[in-house]
């Protein structure tokens, strides 16, 4: 999953802080999305009665569909935001800093 443009290969053997920084940000982004996906689909699909420790058939099917639907929804939102993304000052930008 590559969300950001990748700068051209650096042939040197030293660590380029900016490349590494960008990779870490991408990793954080994926982790954040994944954690929200786990939590969201848990709320949608898992009964809180906890009568047994296994996923039942209905829960398993629901999880599969929930993940697929979340991906599609995420993609649609991403396309929508691409238009406003260039001036992506986000929340902090509004602080008048």
């Amino acid at each position, binding site marked *: 999953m590559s969300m950001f443009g990748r700068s051209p290969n650096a042939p040197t053997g030293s660590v380029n802080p900016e490349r590494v*920084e960008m990779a870490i*940000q991408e990793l*954080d*982004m994926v982790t*954040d*999305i994944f954690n*929200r996906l786990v*939590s*969201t689909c848990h*709320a*949608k*699909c898992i009964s809180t009665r906890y009568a047994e420790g296994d996923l039942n058939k209905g829960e398993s*099917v*629901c999880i*599969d*569909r*929930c993940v*697929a*639907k*979340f991906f*599609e*929804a*995420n993609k*649609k*939102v*991403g396309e*929508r*935001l691409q238009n*406003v993304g260039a001036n*992506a*000052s*986000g*929340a*902090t*930008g*509004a*602080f*008048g*800093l």
Partner: protein
Amino acid sequence: MDFSAFNAAEQAHMTKVIEKKQMQDFMRMYSSLVERCFTSCCNDFTSKALSSKEEQCMMNCADKFLKHSERVGARFAEQNAEAMNAAAQK
């Protein structure tokens, strides 16, 4: 926030820090938006495809959330400016 007491080196450093934090903040906002809108809009898991009704809801929710954030940001900046003026006059 007021960085006027900072020297040039410190201001340059803070600019870098702020840019990085803005990027993180934008990402966090983005993923929280997806989570929030998905939770509100998608409640039918008899299919794995996003229905056109769900898609419309996601788009409206995303648009509305951005406008909401912008408006809160504008009001926040105003209130902040007011609070700083009040503090400066003490």
